[in-house]
């Protein structure tokens, strides 16, 4: 099956800086993929190029098999929600009306329900909205468009944790009822981790990691307790990090932990805590470009 998004060797330079460096990835249709990485890593540039709002310097970008730039056939089936979206000097209801002409799957009922959830009045002028309310408007347009490819670039600026949870819940619910391809860029990884089927980590313009989320879970564990016990337990196993204080040590050990391992750890008086997806991503972002260890293990 053709992937919904297919990027090969994408490079984007401006004014001598390289924002994206030889990026290649594919996103399967009907999946939710997390686009993760630090601020400034290149996630926004990638999303804007996918939406045809910016142009590649070199490489190929295909959405539904065709280049998105200046391509009506593709753009009609795609929506990008940007953190810094500019709106003309009009009201919320005008923005929604405009969106309703442009998106064939637009659902006005969903739009008004989302606005209600966020407490944004349709008759309010957009320039008078708070940051959180502007984000809510962006989320509303992004979800109600029901576009086959939905790109969300950190769409929750100004939304508190409760409001963000409403977004995740509404996204999941609508995705379950009307499947589509979603690429969600975020730096709040642990909050959204359970949504993702796949994750792509961008670090300094390059793909640092591209894997199934479930494949990553449990791949590294922090083993802590008495130094000797820790060393005995982790002997012969690959280790990423070792820290010690007096008679205690804490080691990040790579590899899935089995039932026997758990029992042995308990008998040694050791504590095992798996690394969260966020911690794994932070680790992936710290690697020099192309470093093997994390990427090797994650071909799913």
């Amino acid at each position: 099956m053709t992937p919904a998004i297919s990027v090969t060797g994408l490079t984007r330079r401006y004014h001598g800086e390289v924002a994206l460096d030889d990026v290649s990835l594919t996103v399967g249709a009907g999946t939710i993929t997390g686009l993760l990485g630090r601020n400034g890593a290149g996630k926004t540039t990638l999303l804007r190029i996918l939406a045809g709002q910016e142009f590649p310097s070199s490489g190929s970008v295909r959405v539904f098999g065709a280049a998105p730039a200046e391509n009506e056939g593709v753009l009609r089936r795609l929506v990008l929600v940007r953190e810094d979206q500019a709106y003309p000097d009009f009201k919320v209801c005008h923005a929604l009306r405009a969106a309703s002409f442009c998106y064939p799957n637009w659902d006005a009922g969903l739009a008004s329900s989302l606005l209600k959830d966020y407490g944004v009045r349709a008759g309010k002028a957009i320039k008078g909205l708070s940051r959180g309310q502007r984000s809510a408007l962006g989320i509303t347009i992004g979800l109600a468009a029901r576009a086959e490819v939905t790109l969300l670039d950190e769409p929750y600026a100004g939304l508190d944790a409760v409001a963000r949870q409403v977004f995740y819940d509404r996204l999941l619910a609508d995705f379950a009822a009307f499947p589509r391809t979603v690429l969600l860029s975020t730096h709040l990884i642990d909050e959204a981790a359970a949504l993702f089927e796949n994750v792509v980590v961008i670090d300094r313009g390059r793909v640092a990691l591209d894997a199934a989320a479930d494949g990553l879970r449990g791949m590294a564990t922090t083993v802590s307790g008495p130094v000797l016990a820790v060393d005995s337990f982790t002997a012969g196993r690959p280790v990423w990090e070792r820290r010690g204080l007096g008679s205690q040590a804490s080691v990040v050990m790579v590899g899935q932990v089995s039932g026997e391992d758990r029992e042995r750890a308990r008998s040694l008086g050791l504590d095992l805590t798996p690394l969260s997806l966020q911690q794994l991503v932070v680790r992936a972002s710290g690697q020099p470009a192309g470093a093997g260890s994390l990427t090797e293990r994650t071909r799913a």
Partner: protein
Amino acid sequence: MNAMINVARYHLVQPALFVTLPLAMLAFVFAVNAARGGDTWRDGLAVIFLYFFIMGVQRAGGRWLPFGLALGATRRSFYAGTALLGVSMSFLYGLVIAGLQAIERATGGWGLSTTFFRVPYLLNGPWYATFLTSFAGLSALFVYGMWYGIVNRRWGMLGLLAFVAVQVPAGIAVAFARTWSGVGGPHPSLSALDLTGVIAALTVVILAGGHATIRRATV
């Protein structure tokens, strides 16, 4: 085609800005002139021509562009749809001006022997000439404004300055030609209708220029 129409509909989500506002401005200027008195009020019409220029700048280069692209318009269809809207509005307002001019003449200057909808040489002939000249003039100004908006969007203030600077020699040449004709007024060998043709040709050139500029604009 559909995409262009969607762009036009997008611009018209607040129809008042295209319909009610210019008419209201016209009415306001008319009223101000009426209060002031005098018998030739031609400068009043300039207001609406200026408004069309400003609309062009705003609609093509203002925040209508980034949101339009966000909604999935291509730059090509956004440009064409906006220009189409501007030209259509120019057509309508051309009719309005010609119509109001006819009424003005029929009522002997609104019963006050004055002229508002008349500009010597340019808007002084038969109704169809007035209509064509207004239509061409408003369209030209709208798309010219669009070009300014797009240059600003693409290259910022520096670009705008360069854009203006490049046009200065052409402007000087025109002024020179006029003074050399010895009159400093209308060109003696060009009728109003001929001038309208020149304006229409210029409009086409501007359209091509604006389109070329928007093609690689980013928002």
